[in-house]
């Protein structure tokens, strides 16, 4: 039978062309065009920035300082050393920042778990936070991978759909705020990646003997994937460069494993109300595979849910005699440790579940001494000597333990 090529061509030509509305090539250019048309305001990068490359070659600039920290509810709530390590790194490098009270969660976790929201509400929450940053003059830096991915999705929806822009603009008008979006949506791990050589230059602990396995966070590199950072020198440009680039800059070794693309098992609703799935996936598809194929000293990742799921899921698996038992933390916590941060005062590792102490020992950190110092801090709080600890306490400047 002959393939009716001409008939097929005629049929195809007769079809109405369908607009290809997949990911935008250059959302920054689209935003600037909308700003030119008076549709919205773009908050510009206005300090020194480092250029990096995104998946398909677009240049993305990462502002180094004067940053508005869009915190993560999961990090602040359950892994506070994740957030404090990001702040600590920024302080260590001498860059100013703003830690706002005028910030809500992106509400993305709830949205992906329960769908009890809608595009207008999600966009309005995002724009309200961006407007809050814009009012301060500080440029937004997003701590959570889900917030980062979700905001990129919101940006695409606002660019594509004028009716959504009109709806959000009307809501913002009631709040007395403009429809404003930043020139780039930047995840903290992109800031860490862009500044990895500056960070590595301040390393005080030898991590050359440390083997790391990396879990790239889904909402970082799968949601609006074209906007994630890639580098031809890292995985041949076939996988996001963040986290791995930092580990290599610090001098540790990355060991790969076959299920790197798999998610952590978080599932948004699953981690809260259907944890049998999260536990199974995290241990069977991630931790055990890492143990068998890479045998790392630590698992590093760059998102809230991933740290939580990979860390917390191991306890129940251990009870079943599974091949688990790997410490899990963020790239920021690992970098902070390498730069001399206190494991409890700054990195807050006592909030983690999987045993991190062998890693600390391998990094040359006396965790028993560090824990005693932290206990001494707590006694100062309990005695009423201080109500709260501050950054000087975290750096050991208020006792004889530091600086670290």
């Amino acid at each position: 039978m002959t393939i009716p090529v001409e008939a097929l061509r005629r049929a195809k030509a007769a079809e109405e062309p369908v607009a290809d509305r997949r990911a935008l090539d250059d959302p920054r250019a689209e935003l600037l065009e909308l700003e030119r048309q008076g549709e919205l305001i773009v908050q510009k990068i206005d300090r020194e920035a480092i250029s990096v490359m995104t998946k398909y070659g677009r240049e993305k600039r990462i502002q180094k300082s004067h940053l508005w920290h869009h915190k993560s509810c999961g990090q602040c709530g359950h892994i506070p050393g994740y957030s404090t390590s990001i702040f600590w790194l920024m302080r260590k490098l001498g860059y100013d920042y703003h830690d706002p009270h005028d910030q809500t969660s992106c509400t993305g976790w709830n949205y992906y778990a329960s769908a009890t929201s809608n595009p207008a509400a999600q966009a309005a929450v995002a724009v309200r936070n961006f407007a809050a940053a814009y009012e301060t003059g500080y440029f937004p830096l997003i701590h959570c991978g889900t917030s980062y991915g979700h905001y990129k999705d919101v940006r695409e929806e606002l660019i594509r759909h004028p009716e959504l822009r009109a709806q959000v603009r009307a809501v913002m008008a009631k709040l007395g705020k403009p429809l404003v979006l930043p020139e780039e949506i930047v995840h903290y791990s992109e800031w860490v990646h862009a500044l990895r050589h500056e960070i590595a230059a301040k390393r005080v602990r030898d991590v050359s003997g440390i083997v790391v396995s990396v879990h790239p966070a889904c909402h970082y590199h799968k949601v609006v994937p074209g906007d994630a950072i890639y580098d031809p020198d890292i995985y041949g440009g076939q996988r996001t460069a963040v986290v791995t680039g930092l580990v290599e800059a610090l001098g540790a070794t990355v060991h790969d494993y076959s299920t790197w693309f798999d998610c952590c098992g978080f599932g948004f609703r699953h981690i809260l109300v259907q944890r049998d799935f999260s536990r199974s996936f995290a241990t069977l598809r991630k931790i055990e595979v890492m143990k068998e194929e890479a045998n790392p000293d630590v698992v590093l990742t760059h998102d809230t849910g991933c740290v939580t799921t990979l860390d917390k899921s191991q306890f129940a698996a251990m009870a079943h005699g599974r091949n688990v038992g790997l410490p899990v933390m963020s790239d920021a916590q690992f970098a902070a440790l390498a730069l001399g941060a206190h494991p409890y005062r700054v990195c807050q590792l006592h909030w983690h579940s999987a045993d991190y102490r062998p890693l600390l020992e391998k990094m040359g950190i006396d965790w028993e001494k560090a824990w005693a110092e932290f206990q001494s801090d707590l006694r100062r709080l309990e005695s009423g000597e201080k109500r709260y600890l501050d950054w000087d306490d975290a750096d050991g400047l208020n006792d004889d333990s530091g600086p670290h």
Partner: protein
Amino acid sequence: MTVTSSPPRDTDAHYKVWDVAGYADVPRETKARLFEQVKGDLRFGDYLYGCYECGICVGACPSAKFYDFSPRRIAQAAAREDVDLIYQQMQEDIWDCSQCFSCVRCPRGNNPGGIVTIMREVAVRNGLASAKEALVGYTRIIYKIMSTGTQVSPDMLSKDSFPDWGPETADVADNLDLWRRALPPETMHTTTTGWSVAESTLIELYLIWMETGALDMIAEVDPGLHTILLELMEERLEEAGFEV
């Protein structure tokens, strides 16, 4: 639960079970109306371009490894506008999705996870049984995020809620106030919210929930929670000088 229509469809092998896993069947017009809402979402055209049947989305999908769930079936049912199958998926499948978006590896550019997001929204908006069931036990989270502006709070780490997370989680619960006061950033000394959110910020968030219809959605799946949230928000908004 009584099944009101639809005899067994032996010839329709793509259905899991004919009675939609125990949920009451509904007239076809209702299914068509629900699908029109899915299709009418402004994102639908951004998420669906066709299907090569390659199965890459299924290979990448974590939920497909543990549940009888397939992102390929989601994309195909939507593309075929198969309202019967779509209704079954809305009652049975969509809450299995992990929303990780591994399925966007699709060479055709589909976003099955995004289609699931839309289907979930429609399920919530219409008070489908699957939505009510999926959100049982989850309402405290909705209350937290809508009323405080942060979804995850330190005091959620109770021993009763997370016994499978190990004794370290119990240590957090036992020392919560003290350990929070030991955190260097002054925004993070809170126990009932992830960080300290300004009162004016909360007012703005409440206005967003009310103006965009997000608060109204709660009424369909949990009227009691909706009443609590509505009263809380109205009171705070009126105190702040807004006419509700």
